[in-house]
């Protein structure tokens, strides 16, 4: 798995008649797990369809795993998997038969298809339900079957469109955990979701679209602002705040939550000592993390 970008776009644009879906899109996405976020109509689905070769861009170009998404569509499609958001499962056959079929559709010979389908169905947690027709499946079981067909042929990259939609908390937990483990399987991931918390938990890079443009494309890690301390105080927050201000720190308080920053001293030491001296406690403390939501809102508002 070389470090070359798995997905690139060069001045990518697409318009349906007068409606501009994508405009001047540029990015180089590294291997790993990439989150694709954006408001409704920001161009997420259009981008995925271009990368899958379903739609041809009006200008510019995109590459997937080094292949041009439009001219080398077949090369791309034999190396990727896709979990669509909408219903996409035939209802009258069993999950086992369907996933074997999906493996065959990726070109795997019959025996390999049967073997891998069985492994993958166990992996996604469909032990005995796999032999029942998909018609009677719950939303959770359908989502697992969709994921199974997307990775049954061991793709290098998989596109997941709203993978946790309609799942209950336990189902969501298992799906997010499966997505996080895909890296360990040697599979890159582009996951599109409206639940930013899910993206934060599973991805290490985020591509943010707004109105058909790239708002932001960067690693998720450095969203942390190291020299500001966010602390939730147990006990008398005001006293702690006063103590910090006395020690020369700038404090922004909202109820028990304090944001402490200093130019001179080390904020972490200040907070520690302030808490120790006032006898108050902390429920949580750490560098101020701008959540994906803050970045998203500040971006799409402007």
């Amino acid at each position, binding site marked *: 798995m070389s470090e070359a970008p798995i997905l690139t776009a060069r001045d990518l644009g697409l318009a349906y008649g007068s409606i501009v879906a994508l405009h001047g899109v540029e990015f180089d996405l590294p291997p790993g797990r990439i989150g694709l976020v954006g408001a409704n109509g920001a161009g997420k689905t259009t981008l995925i369809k271009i990368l899958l070769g379903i739609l041809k861009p009006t200008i510019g170009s995109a590459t997937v795993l080094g292949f041009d998404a439009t001219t080398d569509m077949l090369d791309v*499609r034999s190396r990727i998997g*896709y979990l669509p958001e909408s219903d996409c499962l035939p209802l*009258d056959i069993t999950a086992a038969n369907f996933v074997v079929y999906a493996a065959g*559709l990726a070109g795997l010979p019959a025996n390999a298809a049967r073997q891998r389908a069985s492994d993958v169905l166990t992996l996604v947690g469909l032990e005995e339900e796999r032999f029942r027709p998909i018609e009677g499946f719950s939303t959770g079981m359908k989502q697992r079957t969709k994921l199974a067909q997307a990775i049954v*042929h061991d793709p290098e990259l998989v*596109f997941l469109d709203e993978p946790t939609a309609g799942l209950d908390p336990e189902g969501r937990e298992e799906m997010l955990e499966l997505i996080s483990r895909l890296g*360990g399987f040697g599979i890159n991931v582009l996951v599109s979701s409206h639940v930013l918390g899910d993206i934060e938990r599973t991805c290490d890079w985020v591509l943010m679209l707004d109105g058909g443009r790239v708002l932001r494309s960067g690693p998720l890690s450095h969203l942390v602002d190291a020299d500001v301390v966010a602390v939730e105080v147990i006990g008398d927050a005001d006293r702690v705040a006063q103590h910090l201000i006395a020690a020369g720190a700038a404090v922004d308080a909202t109820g028990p939550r304090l944001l402490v920053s200093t130019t001179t001293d080390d904020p972490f030491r200040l907070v520690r000592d302030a808490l120790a001296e006032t006898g108050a406690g902390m429920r949580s403390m750490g560098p101020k993390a701008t959540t994906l939501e803050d970045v998203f809102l500040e971006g799409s508002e402007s």
Partner: protein
Amino acid sequence: MTDKGVVYDLGYVPYEGERGARRGAIATTYRDGIYRVFGIRRRARKKVLPWSLVVLAILPATVFVGFAFLLSTFSPEADSPFGGHGEYFSITGGVVLLFVALAGPELLIPDRREGVLAIYSSRPLTPDDYIGTRAASLLTVVAGFMLIPQVLMYIGFAALSSDGFFSALVDNVDEIPKILATTAVYALATAPLALLISTIASRKAAATGIFLGVLFVGTGLAAALVEATSVPGSRYAALLSISDHPDYVRDWIFDLSVSSDRVMANAGFDPWVSLAVISVTAVASSIFVAWRYRRLM
């Protein structure tokens, strides 16, 4: 592979084996088309209709050949209740109509309604590959429907003929090109139209109904209008007798006597006109279906 050590997750083994890509995908879709049409790997009730039609097409030939064997005095050419290879097409022709009316919608409509096209669009298949392979599955089954009984009869006749099995096989060899040509004509006359209607209709039952309706109402209407000679140019209505064309071309290929209710004959058209109509509708349907699927996938 780079020298970096990678510890793979316990539950996952990467696939290093052979990947057929586009060729494999097309082969799989082709096989699935045939399974789907016969309800293989699907609930029992999906198997009832197709298999009963298979029996309907093959049973008469087997009974006839079997019967002739028993009586052995039975001279095949003269006394066959169905006549020779040509006449037998009247049986399989009708059965094929019913079969295609069910198989066409079964092949295309569920994939669209259930959104499975989204998965085909993520596999190494172009829209033309998908629709071409679906058509291939249908044509294969239709051809099989017609050829199997013919082969049965061909061998049966040879075995029963007075001047020995192998010499009979050789003597009747001129029948073979006629059988193949007629099979092609029936296939082209029914399959493309069924696929066209299955591309437009959104429900299987509706598509089957429309297909059979177009065929029989078309022919009935054509027959009636051809009679109404008072109306100028009514003879061109005969072109609408869709289910009639293949039979008329079959009569021509096997130069059988044309029956009285042959609409095209009554309208004074030559058989090649029927062949032209079949070809035009086949080509037009295919173009429309391919164009539609290029936009869907």
